[in-house]
């Protein structure tokens, strides 16, 4: 079975040409989507659903930096073990705690909230850049560690989003 990169005929790199990914995905969906097989035999409809499901799965995985990075690690035999491996550098954990405190304090302060949001989003971009550097050197162990940290960051950004609803 082809992996997600092979499906779209893309090189298995973290640094992806997004326009090419989009185009390849659409091209494949335009061939396999169940809407193209409404009058076909039951067997063909079944296969169409499986293929379209697969193309969606592959596309969603490659489109998202966190999922793409995790998938690359997996392809190279490095499991993330996000549930069991929760060890983080002390510095990173301290930063997380500081941000949580800031978030609580910024409850009714739009300007403070936005400052925090900007800072966290920058940290998110930096984290992805770091992952890209590890993956470029084929250092999947360190990439996996950075990805686990990215998961923390994304969870925190989700919380920020939820809070922002109540701010307005």
């Amino acid at each position, binding site marked *: 079975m082809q992996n997600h990169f092979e499906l*779209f*005929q893309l090189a298995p790199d973290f640094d992806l*040409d997004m*326009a*090419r990914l989009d*185009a*390849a995905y*659409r*091209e*494949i*969906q*335009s*061939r*396999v*989507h*169940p*809407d193209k097989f*409404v*009058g*076909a*035999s*039951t*067997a*063909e409809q*079944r*296969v*169409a*659903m499986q*293929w*379209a*499901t697969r193309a*969606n*799965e592959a*596309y*969603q995985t490659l489109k998202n930096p966190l999922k793409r990075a995790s998938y690359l690690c997996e392809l190279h035999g490095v499991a993330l073990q996000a549930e069991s491996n929760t060890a983080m550098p002390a510095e990173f954990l301290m930063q997380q705690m500081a941000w949580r405190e800031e978030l609580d304090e910024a409850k009714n302060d739009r300007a403070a909230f936005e400052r925090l949001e900007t800072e966290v989003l920058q940290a998110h971009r930096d984290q992805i850049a770091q992952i890209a550097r590890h993956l470029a050197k084929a250092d999947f162990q360190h990439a996996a560690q950075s990805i686990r940290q990215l998961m923390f960051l994304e969870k925190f950004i989700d919380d920020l*989003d939820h809070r922002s*609803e109540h701010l307005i």
Partner: protein
Amino acid sequence: MALLQISEPGMSTAPHQHRLAIGIDLGTTNSLVATVKNSIPEILSDDEGRALLPSVVRYLPNGHANIGFKAQAAQTSDPKNTVLSVKRLMGRGLKDIAYAENLPYDFLDTPGMVQIQTVAGVKSPVEISAQILATLRQRAEDALGDELVGAVITVPAYFDDAQRQATKDAAKLAGLNVLRLLNEPTAAAIAYGLDNASEGIYAVYDLGGGTFDISILKMSKGVFEVLATGGDSALGGDDFDHRLLCWISEHAKLAPLSDADTRLLMVKSREIKELLSTKSETQIDATLGSGEHVRLTISAEIFADMTQHLIQKTIQPCKKALRDAGLQIDQIDGVVLVGGATRMPPVRKAVGAFFQMTPLSNLDPDKVVALGAAIQANLLAGNRASGDDWLLLDVIPLSLGIETMGGLAEKVIPRNSTIPCARAQEFTTFKDGQTALAIHVVQGERELVSDCRSLARFELRGIPPMAAGAARIRITYQVDADGLLSVSARELRSNVEASITVKPSYGLDDAAITRMLQDTHGTAEADMQARALREQQVEAQRILLATRSALDADAHLLSADELAAITQLISVLEQCAASEDREAIVAAIEQLSAGTDVFAARRMDQSVRAVLTGKTLEQLI
């Protein structure tokens, strides 16, 4: 004069023969049917030239029913047997229905979906909706003069699995072949996008009679991609009427109202709401059953004030959908208004203020959904000209999950996943020697199962006794292109399997559908069997045709033995296809279908491989 071509029996139909397909907007307040004629989508009117069919069904003591305007006219005189806004009851239990106490029906709190006791017997929302669909089907067949290939039926994007399944069952009951369930905002986007050759990111704000949807779509050449959707499947124009009704009761200091008076004031409230879209003030004038006279003046401003919270309730989902799509407001290129309730000026104002632009409404908000559905139906039925083709990528509106220990809902497929999609997750047993596993399928965003909608429960039995935590149970969720879920479970060590299409808690099994078909059409058992036989004969021809054309194109993908095996299965089906033996036809179809699985898979592989090979990015874009 050109000679008409008639194909040989059993041969493929001529490639340019137009196959009749329709789009149906099954609305809370009104329903419509449309089709594409000579490449132009148009609404099909009734014989009095009316496009809208009020979604109202009145049951009569003789067992018959009136549908549409005639039923609507009786809504105040016969409220118990005249069902309005049945869409709000689809796939819903009694406890889910807002203001059930204000509705005049004799509800039966049946498990899964509520039912109504009428003078013509107990009716489920599915049967009532089927009456409306059957009326539209008849209208279409009369207008088009032939049998229909199928229909696209629209549903609110925010409909959950139970509501979608109920809609599909209603269509089946009305004798319609459902080509696809299509989300209403997506249908509107198709009609709008193709009409205006629009490109970019659009928000479709759809406030109908009983439902609210917001969808964010990316439209580009040949692709409609839904990025996120949100809404409230129990919020619509009806709620504005209801608010006005409460205001009238309060200000006129009315005693609790009879069912007939409630209906009367509901009708008045709707009229006033519509008048206030163009006037700044109007009068309420009504005489109740008791002879009491109600006369009040209401301004557009007061009406706007009392309904402001309802409009605000639509803005929150807009924010959420934008966030889910990962977009900022300034990335939206246009906002399309759909649904009769968007005619209210305060709604337009609020939408304009939120999206920071004037909403587009150059297509009739009542008709745009049906037109889009007709365009999609035409495409699915195979009437597209080459080069005039597009791809629709839609999403599921609500996360699908499973109950885990402690009544928590574990998400298996997150909301806004592009469909079709599937996901497998592994679970294990809790106790030593546990031989069965209860699987509870839920839908919704909340963490507690009790706050989510329960879709189905089923059991995986026959797990060999093992220590707690040793069994490996893989549960697979598959959502098809209609947004409908099926779930299967398998114990990986022993290969014990159980699967389910998520129907039992809300949907109807085939036996129930057959019974309802008999009730609805008052037909005898023999007629029903004849109809079922005819359906299978048609299906057999469809499969034979599809298989033969696949062989014509790609027989080279098969070995001589494989080809011989398929040819054998074809001739078995050919032989029984014309017979009266329904069971034999069903069995032969299934065998041919199973026997061509590998062939279908190879054809698809070939097609996918061919598509990307040697293409440059420029060629792809």
